[in-house]
């Protein structure tokens, strides 16, 4: 028996800011913080996907601050999903729609299914369900991980996405131990891209590059199957800076090379935006200090910490197989392997 893939919506790429759809499907009146970039991700996400979209939201700021006390900013159907369940919710909803349409209980229609989760709900608790979802290639759904680098809703606890050394309520800086948290941020999109050949689209974006982000969401939905987009969202509350700098910090995260923008389409990795310019040598990477010094969560850093941070980022750019994306290096003796004849077997030359 062959599985039938549901047709996906045509979502043409947005050519520039003037081409961005005007209608808001996530309207004002959400109680997120001043300058919340995660709220902006929600707005851009539904703007890009359009009115025929179902959104499912895992517990976190984007649920609690958006839909509190019987009031909501969502124009599209939205459902609260358990913390850690975004993958299951996405897959289940896509499967449910498919069955209802097959049985004629629902009009045959192209509907986008997007489940979002925070870094706590996605990179920590929900990673298993997301991974499982990405292997089910016959269902169209997108999981969007909005990453404010902490469990922000419950007042800023450490997650696997919290950057090296950052202060959180679980990792304060003390007299005895200046850095309570010294793990390097987990590479979620890289890991998911490497491990899920069934997924046709996996990307990393940032709302500070709104058009790039919206196009990634559109491409994910248009290609169909299970897809994944990870966004880095400056969070003034947890990162401790004045909300007016949210956009600027998004730009700095990319320009310093800490947060590379890329997409993996059918196994092929494209760097996008300034990340591409940096990789091609058309733009210089900014020192990470530019980014770190603007945030209170790094205020306890001494030179040594900044140097370590810089060295780690440098390594991502100089030593990795794909800069900032795939954390592999090839031993010198095996460099030849990379040049292996990749033609189909019958076309390969025999020695």
């Amino acid at each position, binding site marked *: 028996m062959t599985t039938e893939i549901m047709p996906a919506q045509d979502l043409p790429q947005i050519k520039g800011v003037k081409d961005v759809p005007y209608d808001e499907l996530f309207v*004002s009146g959400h109680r997120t913080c001043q300058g919340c970039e995660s709220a902006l991700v929600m707005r851009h996400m539904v703007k890009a996907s359009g009115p025929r979209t179902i959104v499912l939201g895992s517990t976190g700021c984007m649920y609690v601050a958006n839909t509190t006390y019987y009031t909501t900013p969502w124009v599209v159907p939205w459902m609260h999903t358990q913390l850690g369940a975004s993958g299951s919710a996405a897959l289940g909803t896509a499967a449910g729609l498919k069955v209802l349409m097959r049985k004629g209980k629902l009009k045959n229609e192209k509907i986008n299914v997007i489940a979002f989760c925070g870094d706590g709900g996605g990179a920590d608790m929900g990673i298993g369900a997301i991974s499982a979802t990405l292997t089910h290639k016959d269902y169209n759904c997108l999981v969007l991980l909005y990453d404010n680098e902490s469990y922000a809703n419950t007042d800023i606890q450490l997650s696997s996405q919290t950057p090296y050394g950052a202060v959180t309520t679980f990792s304060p800086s003390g007299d005895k131990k200046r850095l309570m948290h010294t793990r390097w941020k987990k590479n979620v999109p890289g890991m998911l891209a490497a491990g899920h050949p069934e997924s046709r689209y996996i990307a990393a974006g940032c709302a500070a590059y709104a058009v790039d982000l919206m196009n990634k969401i559109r491409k994910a939905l248009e290609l169909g199957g299970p897809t994944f987009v990870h966004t880095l969202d400056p969070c003034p509350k947890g990162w401790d800076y004045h909300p007016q700098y949210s956009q600027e910090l998004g730009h700095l995260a990319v320009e310093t090379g800490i947060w590379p923008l890329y997409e993996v389409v059918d196994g092929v990795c494209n760097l996008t935006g300034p990340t591409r310019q940096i990789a091609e040598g058309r733009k210089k990477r900014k020192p990470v200090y530019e980014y770190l010094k603007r945030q209170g969560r790094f205020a306890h850093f001494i030179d040594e910490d900044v140097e370590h941070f810089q060295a780690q980022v440098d390594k991502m750019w100089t030593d990795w197989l794909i800069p900032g994306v795939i954390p592999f290096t090839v031993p010198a003796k095996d460099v030849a392997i990379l040049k292996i004849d990749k033609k189909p077997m019958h076309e390969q030359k025999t020695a």
Partner: protein
Amino acid sequence: MAEERSVSIEVVYRGIFQKTLAQRICRSVVLAARKRGHTGTAFARYGDSPERNGVPAKQFAVVAADELELEASMAKYEPSVVDVSIAVDDTLVKGVESWAWYGRQPIWKPVRANGWLLVTSDKKPDEVLAQTDKAERPYTLGIVPGGASFAGLWVYKDDHTDFRVLGALAKILPQWIALDDAKAASLELAKGDQSAVASVQYGYDATTMRRVKDGEGTSGHEVLQFKKPGWTKMRPGVIVEARKPGERNPYYKKYGARTMRPVVNFDTCIKCTMCWLDCPDECFEVTPEGHYEVVYEACIGCGICAQVCPVKDCIVMVDELKFTDNKDKWQLWKTDHSKYNSWFEDMSGVSADPKKGASGSVPPNANPAANAATNPGADPAANPTTSAGGDE
């Protein structure tokens, strides 16, 4: 007053930005009162957690003659009537809306008759009163000199607002907080730094009092109250009605969370859409001419639009207390250009004609966004909205 057995104080503050400050005020009150042999406790309101930055929140201090009295006062999970309310950001006098369904409440709402409202402000009592809801019972307004202190989350930049407030409290509640005790407590909290004592004395001396009679204040603020549906009326599955396209959520307007708001110079706007695109609160509406006007009811005052606008001084962030309403302003520009432009100049202190440069008495970059961006090392006192974090 001698026979009173307990006193309750609330601190109303901007969520997150001033959380540490509110904590320190509540703690110092209790510490000072204990030096007199009283007892007391400091606590936060559960309902405000998780706090969102800018959104009003409350913390409390209750001081009592003995443990029994304290327990009796503490039986209430949050005091609905307080002796003193302290607003650590003067824009809070426009009303407090912390969470949905409460609606916007006058700042004096929990203050008992003849109680006190202390506001930290650089303005005169009458200017502050002009923006405070019309009083329904008499109280005393005290102005503690100083701008809003935006002490950050992790890094507390000490500007002694807490000690000045403690000094002001010593003035109005001497039987609970004696000036000497306040000084001793501040010295302890500041780890021996004598300037803390000077700040307590300054708060004591420089706080100005103004009796407020019934009916004084403004009636210009919007009434914003909602009816709770109650769980029996909720639809099965807790289904909430979606918003209609183009509609805004009427149950939560963001202006109560704002200390600054943007004003737009439509004459210099190049219609680039950046403000609209990057506003996390969906505030901008496109006009028939292709300009972007701010819907002030939705604006939380984050300042991102002013930061991303490529034209210098086209969007300027202005002190919220300069405004008396939340009406959109583009209509005015449409019907009367010059009237709008003089309004813009008056508010922003920036000339509406970029060729002319600065106007009025305010320096050209009164815009704190521009100020902080071009001059990151600026004196934090001169720019109280600069983040506590790492700019220096």
